[in-house]
């Protein structure tokens, strides 16, 4: 064989297509993709990969082929333990196997390996049976995946540990007439998730090595953040969630309240007003906001 630089590129493209092929090494070598790089068959692969005293070329390549999926499946299982528990490891591995073919890693870090897994599950979910009404099993699995991915991102992403965050006392310094125009600036690690199931309780039970049964569907609004480098999640009411979401989207306090109250009756508006002070205090205590900007 010649040893021009293209040959190295061809060897690498060939080897990558062979060891990542879903149907095994022999099928991979005989595939069009591999043969377009190096035109050898499984029978004459020794022209590329030499044998050892103990193993032939196919068996040697199989070490890499086995390791490729095994290693990446292991990482995904570690990132999505509640999803593994929900469907069982074999089914989870089936999902992950399909995912790795659809979304192979393009990052230098394994931290990004599972980033599109919730999206993949949404794209490949079975068609919802509309006659059933309400969320189904697939929605539950997607909820868990979204939650567990959020945990990963919040855990290792930017947090507020190094800065002074908004405190409850800061709120009392704002004049009442300034509130409607004020904007609350969230910490970068704040994630707001609206789920169809209480997946957070389920995930916590799995992480505590309990054996939770799948929960009944129930609209679940979560505020996920980080304090002292540990991910914290809290279920909030739908009203509180709406206001938080508006504020996180950059709206003023006045706009956020107006938006939340738009579909409410008078009684609900009164309840909202009564809750606001408590919510703001709770958000400050939880460290959801970096600061409060008041329009001058």
């Amino acid at each position, binding site marked *: *064989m010649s*040893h*021009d*630089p293209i*040959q*190295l*590129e061809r*060897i*690498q493209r060939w*080897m*990558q297509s062979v*060891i*990542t092929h879903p149907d095994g090494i022999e099928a991979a070598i005989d595939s069009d993709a591999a043969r377009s790089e190096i035109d050898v068959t499984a029978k004459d692969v020794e*022209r*590329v*990969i*030499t044998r*050892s*005293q*103990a*193993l032939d070329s196919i*068996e*040697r390549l199989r*070490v*890499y082929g*086995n*390791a*490729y999926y*095994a*290693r*990446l499946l*292991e*990482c995904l299982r*570690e*990132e999505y333990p509640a999803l593994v528990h929900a469907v069982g490891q074999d089914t989870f591995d089936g999902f992950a196997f399909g995912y790795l073919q659809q979304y*192979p*890693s*393009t*990052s*230098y*870090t*394994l*931290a990004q*390996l599972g980033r599109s897994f919730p999206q993949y599950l949404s794209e490949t979910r079975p068609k919802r049976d509309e006659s059933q009404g309400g969320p189904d099993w697939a929605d539950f699995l997607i909820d868990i995946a979204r939650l567990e991915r959020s*945990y*990963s991102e*919040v*855990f*290792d*992403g*930017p*947090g507020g*540990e190094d800065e002074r965050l908004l405190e409850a006392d800061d709120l009392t310094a704002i004049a009442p007439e300034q509130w409607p125009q004020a904007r609350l600036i969230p910490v970068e690690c704040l994630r707001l998730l609206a789920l169809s199931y209480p997946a957070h309780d389920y995930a*916590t039970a799995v*992480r505590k090595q309990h054996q939770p049964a799948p929960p009944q569907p129930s609209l679940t609004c979560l505020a996920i953040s*980080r304090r002292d*480098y*540990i*991910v*914290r999640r809290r279920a909030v009411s739908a009203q509180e969630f709406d206001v938080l979401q508006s504020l996180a989207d950059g709206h003023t306090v006045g706009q956020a309240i107006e938006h939340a109250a738009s579909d409410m009756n008078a009684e609900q508006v009164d309840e909202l007003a009564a809750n606001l002070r408590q919510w703001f205090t709770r958000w400050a205590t939880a460290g959801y906001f970096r600061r409060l900007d008041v329009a001058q």
Partner: protein
Amino acid sequence: MTPARLGQDHLGLGVGLRSKHYGHILKQQPDVDWFEIISENYMDSRGKPRYVLEQIAERYPIVMHGVSLSIGSTDPLDIEYLDKLRCLAGAVDAHWVSDHVCWTGVAGRNAHDLLPIPFNDETLRHVVERIRTVQDILERPLMLENPSSYVTFADSTMTEWEFLTRMTEETDCGLLLDVNNVYVSSVNHDFDPIEYLHNIPHERVVQFHLAGHTNCRTHLIDTHDGHVIDPVWELYRLAHELTGGASTLLEWDARIPEFPVLHQEVLKAKHYMGAQLPDTPFADHVEDETFAGAPSSVPHPATFVVAEVE
């Protein structure tokens, strides 16, 4: 004349920093000489891993060990990745930065494996050129490690040790000699590990790696999941004698034991450093090689960091 270890410090006996041991290290401040980190687990981190690393870096020497440089790939070098490596090295004042003589993917993909390259003149030229670029960007000493491998190429025209010798001499980079990898590859590729050790550039060996592996009877897999076996310790003894000694690091990445077990394992190295006597007794016997017979055993070049949730 090239100085021993390319003039780099002999840091002593260290272990790989793994998230499982964060609490123990911060609380107990164990008497470890130095830590090696997996660069990719920290270069983007803005959470606990990075926070813990900064505290540890204040007390212990740090060396950075990467798994995604992909120096042998025919894809372009990832400049953003290299910039992040340089920034992290500055932040933790890394003594040097290391990675492997391998490729991890092409066409924009990452297999997250340390894939072997054919050892020939064209590959050598390709790798040498890329090493020089990386050295210019990193502005820190670069060491490259011999990986364990499971295939050899019909295209190879030289031995691994000849390739490493020419590569390090042409670039002036250092060698991270993984003694376990020499042993694993020697079994997998039917070469003599002693001949390997005699023919590498000894003065360029800046660091040693030690680890456990899995014996699948027909081949060995570099699983980093157990004790270092006796034949590897004997190779370490020879490598130590030939090089005059270098910073030594134990890797343990699967079925990770409690920290004292890990620390004790690397301290065994003192028994193989010529006349220097150990000041710590063995906590357990030196284990014989075990036959796991597990064909699905998986090498772990990188570790995944699991989120901590309240």
